[in-house]
């Protein structure tokens, strides 16, 4: 019965890559073969009882047939602890999990929108289906953008990278959704476009509104706190327009943006 989704994975490499991010490469052949863009893995950052729960991380790349890459920002106690686990050690890895992005059909131009630390799943998607894609990156300032090496990768894989920062220290001054809207408004024909977005929920809600205005299909990757990653704990619920909630870990994390009840979702996030 040993499942091919539960591993003790060797850390091949693990190092800081700038702007508060780390790149972690794990040897996990079965996960490397199976992983699809938008899927995630659960990692336990230690074998102790505290912190207790595993953390979800979007797969950012499959650098070889036997390894997967995670790029994460140090954001709390779990990720801080994770930074201290050196190459040569092993971590418990569960995955790949969840439902990823539907891959764009032939003739489709994917439009990626990444905010905050939400770029890793799009990084993986760009590698699989990004050659014609446009990427929109937004952050408060230059230092809050993805690491320079990641932006460089994106520039090598996608057709064009559009950057906006609130203070104008990189790219255009403004929000990624502003330059996205301008970009879309300048296009006469939009039927060949599909939006793929990952980032803070407020940004995803804004991208969804833009998608509706321009009648473009939009897939969003939703983040929510998770305990199991397997659909059992019911902790990672996302409010849907119909039929209550869906689980970010099972039916998601990627959803068609039209299915999500954005009012409730964004309201809840702002209330926190």
């Amino acid at each position, binding site marked *: 019965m040993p499942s091919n989704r539960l591993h003790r994975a060797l850390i091949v490499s693990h190092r800081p890559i700038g702007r508060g991010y780390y790149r972690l490469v794990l040897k996990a052949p079965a996960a490397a073969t199976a992983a699809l863009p938008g899927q995630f893995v659960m990692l336990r950052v230690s074998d102790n009882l505290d912190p*207790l729960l595993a953390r979800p991380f979007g797969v950012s790349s499959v650098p070889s047939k036997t390894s997967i890459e995670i790029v994460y920002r140090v954001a709390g106690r779990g990720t801080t602890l994770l930074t201290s686990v050196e190459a040569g050690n092993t971590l418990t890895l569960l995955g790949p999990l969840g439902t990823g992005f539907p891959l764009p059909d032939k003739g489709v131009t994917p439009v990626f929108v990444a905010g905050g630390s939400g770029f890793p799943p799009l990084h993986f998607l760009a590698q699989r289906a990004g050659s014609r894609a446009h990427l929109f990156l937004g952050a408060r300032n230059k230092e809050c953008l993805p690491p320079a090496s990641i932006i460089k990768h994106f520039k090598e894989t996608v057709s064009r990278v559009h950057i906006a920062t609130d203070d104008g220290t990189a790219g255009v001054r403004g929000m990624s959704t502003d330059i996205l809207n301008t970009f879309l408004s300048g296009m006469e024909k939009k039927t060949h476009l599909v939006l793929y977005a990952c980032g803070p929920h407020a940004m995803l809600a804004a991208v969804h509104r833009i998608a509706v205005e321009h009648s473009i299909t939009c897939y969003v990757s939703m983040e929510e706190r998770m305990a199991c990653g397997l659909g059992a704990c019911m902790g990672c619920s996302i409010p849907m327009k119909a039929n209550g*909630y869906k689980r970010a870990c099972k039916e998601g994390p990627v959803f068609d943006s039209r299915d999500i009840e954005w009012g409730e979702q964004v309201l809840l996030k702002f209330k926190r």
Partner: protein
Amino acid sequence: MSKTQNKESAMVSPDLSIDFAGIKLKNPVLTASGTFGYGEEFAEFVDLNKLGGVIVKGISLKPIKGNPPPRIWETPSGMLNAIGLENPGVEVFLRDKLPYLRKFDTAVIVNMFGYSLEDYVSVAERLDGVTGISGIEVNISCPNVKAGGIVFGTNLTSAFELLSAVRKATKLPIIAKLSPNVTDITAFARAAQDAGCDGLSLINTLLGMAIDVRCRRPRLANITGGLSGPAIKPVAIRMVWQAARAVSLPIIGMGGIMTGEDAVEFMLAGASAVAVGTANFIDPRATIGVLSGIEDFLREQRIPAVRELIGKVDAG
């Protein structure tokens, strides 16, 4: 191989079976309701045939949507949850979930609850006589819904009336899942016994709360939630011990079990079986780990049958 090793291997298979209120368990390891879905979610990781039983996620008369997110928050060696008993309702359970579980050689115990006494009775009646159900666990202790659940579990008269009504509604063994959010657990254990219950499950989660100090907002949309995980184990052990001395009903002990030795601790306190809960979230194979840990312990201690552990703490 030496003679001693031969002797050891002659008793390598301790008797793990337990008769729990007439329910035949091949071993004392069950899954705690709400942490193992309806079994299928974990079948990729665990051979369900190996488990003593599966206690499924709580079922109500009608489907329940559950609470808004955020629903969970991690705490030191534990977690708070306020799921709100989200479930597809008894009819969908019987149609879509139970047939899968029936394929396995393991006891299926259905956790159920309602918002009113009539709801509880209706679900119990609906489950009565259904093939493939070994028993009913009556949840009178969910801390996360306004009506029902804990309202019954923290008032002695309501608990007695409710459990008596459920008793009349079914011939299946009924196990009352008690709330730890009471001053005297023994009073509720006695009420369950007097109402005609066949067993007890304890403990459910402890009511808790966490606050984001920067936003000055509760971490959970529901404000309060149920605390589970290793953090609550000492409370659970104490309550199992107290209840076991107060009543003659067999007890399913639960609350923070991560290892075989944790399970043994519950059995020494007086539990006849154990349920693995939050550990399933951290390691989907946790139940199997607990089971083999119990076996290792019995071998190491040269105890031929697991039932010999029940209530054998020497508390002077």
